């Protein structure tokens, strides 16, 4: 009896299995983090629908995972050897880690076959996904990580000028605190915001751009224990002690913090370019009308006070284990989602474009998005710490910044720990 069942089962499996393989549709799984409060959530939904319509022979099995959990889940899948066929990766450090482990298929062929597409990108969008001459993805937009959004009505009300130096910033913080206004809305519960949105730019103001490269390459005797880096950590502590942030910044996240700014309770907010779509959707018109965008003040260090931190947006990469048919289908999707038609949609979702030139009529777009485009034109980008550092160093600096800010650790201890890990 049992044996007969087994045979029947096998027969079914064969029939069913061959039915699937006879189907001419190509199917691939796609993991991405464009969901919820992410500015690319709607963009992705729009593009996936358009792609499905244009390519009825390709079926995408989509998995949306919020950003804070995304990397953990993906790397766990990588450890288990069962990565999805296509997935979103971050530029630089993460791309290098994955590429060196042989987990990614490159898109060099695709780029070479489509020179118009390739040459339209601003260099950052491809360079930051290139390891040893092989390119693994194309960045979807650009992420500025350290934008100061400020409410000029609040500044005017208390007769404060937007700070261009550290001394002016300290004065502004004092005036706002005296009047019961939160100087800077901030949320650091996930730990990366302090590093990504404040420290990356602040440290660059102190150390200059070459220093971090030198430290990581162990060149020119540069070390994490160097004075300018320690100085930057000290400033983080000073900002905390001055009361620059809302008191509960360690218990709320970087989305919850926006509430203070939207309600007009905070004069400034430090966040990435990704906050713009949420702001336009949720802040009252009075706050939107008075919002200006700016870069960090001059902290008097070695760095160029004009720069701001930013990286290429994340991009979609191909699993090295995907079948040739899947690789071709995913390549098509990468071209589709980063191509001109999609880039033209970026302004609609307030994402800075990653093509060199898409004609944008400044008069028809949202004024805040226009201000962001101006900001990008006027301020060169420097790298973000968690993009340049490996996961272990990133974790030390993320943890360390919080410990330093609340006085649980000394800057020199964090610096020593980072330097020791580097060896």
């Amino acid at each position: 009896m049992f044996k007969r069942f087994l045979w029947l089962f096998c027969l079914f499996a064969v029939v069913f299995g061959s039915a699937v393989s006879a189907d001419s549709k190509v199917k691939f799984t796609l993991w991405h983090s464009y969901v919820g409060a992410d500015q690319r959530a709607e963009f992705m939904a729009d593009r996936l629908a358009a792609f499905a319509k244009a390519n009825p022979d390709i079926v995408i099995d989509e998995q949306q995972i919020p950003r804070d959990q995304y990397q953990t889940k993906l790397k766990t899948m990588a450890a288990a050897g069962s990565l999805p066929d296509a997935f979103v990766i971050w530029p630089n450090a993460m791309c290098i880690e994955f590429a060196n482990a042989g987990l990614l298929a490159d898109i060099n062929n695709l780029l070479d076959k489509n020179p118009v597409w390739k040459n339209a990108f601003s260099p950052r969008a491809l360079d930051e996904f290139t390891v040893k001459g092989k390119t693994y993805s194309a960045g979807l937009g650009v992420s500025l990580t350290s934008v100061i959004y400020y409410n000029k009505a609040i500044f005017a009300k208390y007769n404060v000028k937007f700070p261009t130096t550290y001394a002016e910033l300290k004065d502004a913080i004092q005036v706002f605190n005296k009047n019961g206004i939160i100087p800077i809305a901030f949320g650091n519960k996930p730990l990366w915001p302090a590093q990504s949105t404040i420290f990356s730019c602040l440290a660059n103001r102190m150390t200059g751009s070459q220093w971090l490269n030198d430290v990581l390459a162990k060149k020119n005797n540069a070390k994490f224990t160097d004075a300018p880096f320690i100085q930057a950590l000290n400033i983080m502590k000073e900002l905390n002690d001055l009361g620059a942030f809302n008191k509960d910044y360690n218990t709320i996240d970087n989305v919850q913090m926006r509430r203070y700014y939207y309600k007009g309770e905070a004069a400034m907010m430090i966040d990435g370019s990704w906050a713009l779509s949420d702001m336009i959707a949720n802040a009252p018109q009075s706050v939107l009308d008075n919002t200006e965008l700016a870069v960090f003040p001059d902290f008097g260090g070695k760095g160029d006070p004009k720069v701001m931190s930013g990286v290429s947006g994340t991009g979609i990469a191909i699993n090295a284990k995907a079948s040739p048919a899947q690789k071709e289908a995913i390549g098509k999707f990468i071209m589709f989602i980063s191509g001109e038609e999609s880039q033209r949609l970026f302004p609609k979702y307030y994402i800075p474009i990653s093509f060199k030139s898409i004609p944008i009529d400044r008069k028809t777009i949202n004024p805040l998005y226009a201000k962001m485009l101006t900001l990008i034109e006027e301020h060169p980008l420097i790298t973000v710490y968690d993009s340049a550092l490996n996961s272990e160093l990133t974790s030390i600096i993320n943890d360390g910044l919080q410990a330093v800010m609340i006085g649980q650790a000394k800057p020199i201890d964090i610096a020593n720990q980072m330097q020791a890990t580097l060896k």
Partner: protein
Amino acid sequence: MDLIFKNKKYIFLGLFPALSLFIFFVVYPIIRSFFYGFYDWNGLSRPIYVGLANFKAVLSDKVFWHAFRNNIFIVVISVFGQIPLGLVLAVLLNDKFRGAKFFRFIFFMPMILSTVVVGLLWSTILNSQVGIVNNLLKNIGLGSLAHDWLGESGLALYSVGFVIIWQFFGLYMIILMAALQNIPKEVFESAELDGAGGLTKLFHITLPMIWSSIMASVVLCIAGGMKTFDLVFTMTQGGPAHSTDLMAIYMYNKTFETYKYGYGSAVSLVIFVLSFTLIIGSRALMSRKSADL
């Protein structure tokens, strides 16, 4: 029935499905993870054998021992907070009076809520700006007592500990209440005839008779306290600056945030040894105590 028990083949056949699942999904992964403890592995590239280096690093990491101390703190407040509280409520609510059922339900309710819900609920209640606690304090003129309950490194662990007690005391209330109801009434009646008062009855009849349930509760408390993760993780993620770090959170962060899978496996082995020792030790201690009584 006897026939079946005599034939070992059928016993094995009956156990086989559950046993094979258990071995495949529990025993095998645990053994595998012990082996990974001896490797340096980031999950992406090939594991490298490093001998005892991971274990040495775990045992000499101050943050780990800090997390261990926090676990012990949680165990202590669980054992000396949840069990006495559960016992008192069980004794009170064991008497039949109007509303006893209502209170039993109310006190047990935190147990049925999902831990994530409890975590988010209390994060909001304890929030320094919009939380009920601080607003209440401000409204009754005690604004100076308002704190950032989860954001101050000296306070966060106590706040978390309070929530842990709040969530689980209902469980021990139910366990002990069940034990209370198993005490035969005749024992109390004869004690009353001999002139025993309320306290005498409590200490000389009730407690000794439910001692095995209390012991089981203590073991549950220790095991629960050593493996606590979800509630604290949703409330503070071990922060600020490791002040509410627990061993399980430490392991999670090392494994899934810094991607040191080998190191994480070593941590889990150390946690296993520590927890096991604590439970065995406590059982030995408690059984001696019950012999004294």
